[in-house]
């Protein structure tokens, strides 16, 4: 049990490092599904591992065997987890539970608010054009989802570039992409090591919508230009004396928009069954290790019950 329980705690760190290179080599739709499912599985497995670590120390406390009618000798015969480790594990698990609870409540509220706005937007069509000079375009999740485009954005784009924009936003609406990003963020709340994975999910859904737009318009170069022109339009009037915005993409390498444009100027990544299977195997191994550790503990407790 010793080693098995630590595997689910280490794999998320690997996932954080591997997320971006992995996603770059897979079709965006595949990457989005893979990364989201992996993040959820890894978050569950790591939380379970923390639980097992904490619990395996708790059952050794003399008080427990008396209260639970269990054999203290059997309970204390299992692999010993050091007290500091167990306390740390318990603390981290409690923090994770709190963080997930908070994040879930906020996210649900945000999604509900978006649904309300989507319902109350004027007009009956999916697309709403607002009288606004600033260039902006986004999709509101809802039943039905609505696409909001400002007059400023329409004017910033030329001809068929507007088709790109529409196709992109509609892809978000059709695919309910907000579910992917929300799930990944919740997983990252449970295990902060997964934050880079959640960030890559956000990027992957944008690429997914870009690829759908390119497929619908049949022109990758056009799609690249549309993304670039739209982005430059939103930066057209730099804020004067505004509070400093968080540094997006300044840290390392290019930000998401140049990366998206670059990805459009080359053919899309092809399927890579090898990468896909390798990732699924690693995540499954992590889940399996957590399960093994849990079963081990369960067996120990059962044995202690039997031998009382």
């Amino acid at each position, binding site marked *: 049990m010793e080693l098995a329980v630590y595997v689910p705690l280490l794999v998320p760190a690997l996932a954080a490092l591997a997320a971006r290179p992995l996603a770059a080599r897979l079709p965006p739709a595949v990457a989005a599904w893979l990364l989201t499912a992996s993040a959820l599985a890894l978050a569950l497995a790591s939380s379970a591992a923390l639980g097992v670590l904490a619990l395996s120390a708790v059952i050794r406390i003399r008080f427990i065997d008396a209260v639970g009618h269990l054999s203290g000798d059997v309970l204390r015969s299992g692999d010993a987890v050091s007290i500091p480790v167990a306390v740390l594990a318990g603390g981290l698990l409690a923090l994770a539970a709190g963080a997930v609870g908070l994040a879930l409540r*906020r*996210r649900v509220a*945000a999604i509900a*608010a*978006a649904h309300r*706005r989507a319902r*109350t*937007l*004027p*007009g*009956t*069509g999916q*697309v*709403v*054009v*607002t*009288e*606004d*000079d*600033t260039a*902006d*375009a*986004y999709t*509101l*999740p809802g039943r039905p989802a609505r696409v909001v*485009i400002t007059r400023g954005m329409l004017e910033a784009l*030329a*001809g068929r570039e*507007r088709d790109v*924009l*529409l196709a*992109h936003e509609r892809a*978000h609406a059709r695919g309910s992409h*907000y579910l992917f*990003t929300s799930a990944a963020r919740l997983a990252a709340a449970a295990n902060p090591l997964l934050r880079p994975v959640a960030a890559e999910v956000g990027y992957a859904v*944008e690429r997914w*919508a870009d690829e759908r737009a390119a497929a619908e318009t049949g022109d990758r*170069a056009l799609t690249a*230009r549309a*993304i*670039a*022109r*739209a*982005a*430059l339009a939103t*930066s057209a*009037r730099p*804020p*004067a*004396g505004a*509070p400093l915005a968080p*540094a*997006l*993409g*300044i840290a390392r390498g*290019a*930000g*998401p*928009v*140049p990366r998206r444009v670059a990805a459009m100027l080359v053919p899309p990544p092809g399927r890579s069954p090898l990468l896909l299977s390798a990732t699924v195997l690693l995540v499954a191994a992590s889940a399996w290790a957590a399960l093994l550790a849990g079963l081990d503990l369960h067996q120990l407790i059962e044995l202690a019950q039997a031998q009382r």
Partner: protein
Amino acid sequence: MAPMLDGPDQAAQAAQGGFDAERAAHHRRAAGQLEAAVLAELQQAGSALSPGEVRERLGGDLAYTTVVTILSRLHAKGLLSRQKAGRVYRYAPVADQPGLAARRMARVLDEEADREAVLARFVSSLSDRDEELLRKMLGQDLGDQEREG
């Protein structure tokens, strides 16, 4: 140019409920950042301010209606108190223990971050470096493209 938008192609009256007022800011700043900026100004001011005064202190580049909307929202969230002074309200941060106010502010801003995250924006903000990169990547392309239709 063939119309590509379904539904009415004419501009929609989207100013209801302050919805569009949020987006009427000239600059691409998240709503949460605007709220933070307004709160900061009020805390520094040391006395209650009217929307016009807040707007001036922020550099005057926000629409007046935007400032009014932000102030009302902050008031509704319990972060500001207000008193009628003539025809306008004057707003002040709720006289609170600093820790409590800070926690509330953090919660408000986090909620805004979630609201932003749920929208799927076409493009995110660009750093200066990104802007340069984009212009370089497309080089001639952008300049040569004539607007069609």
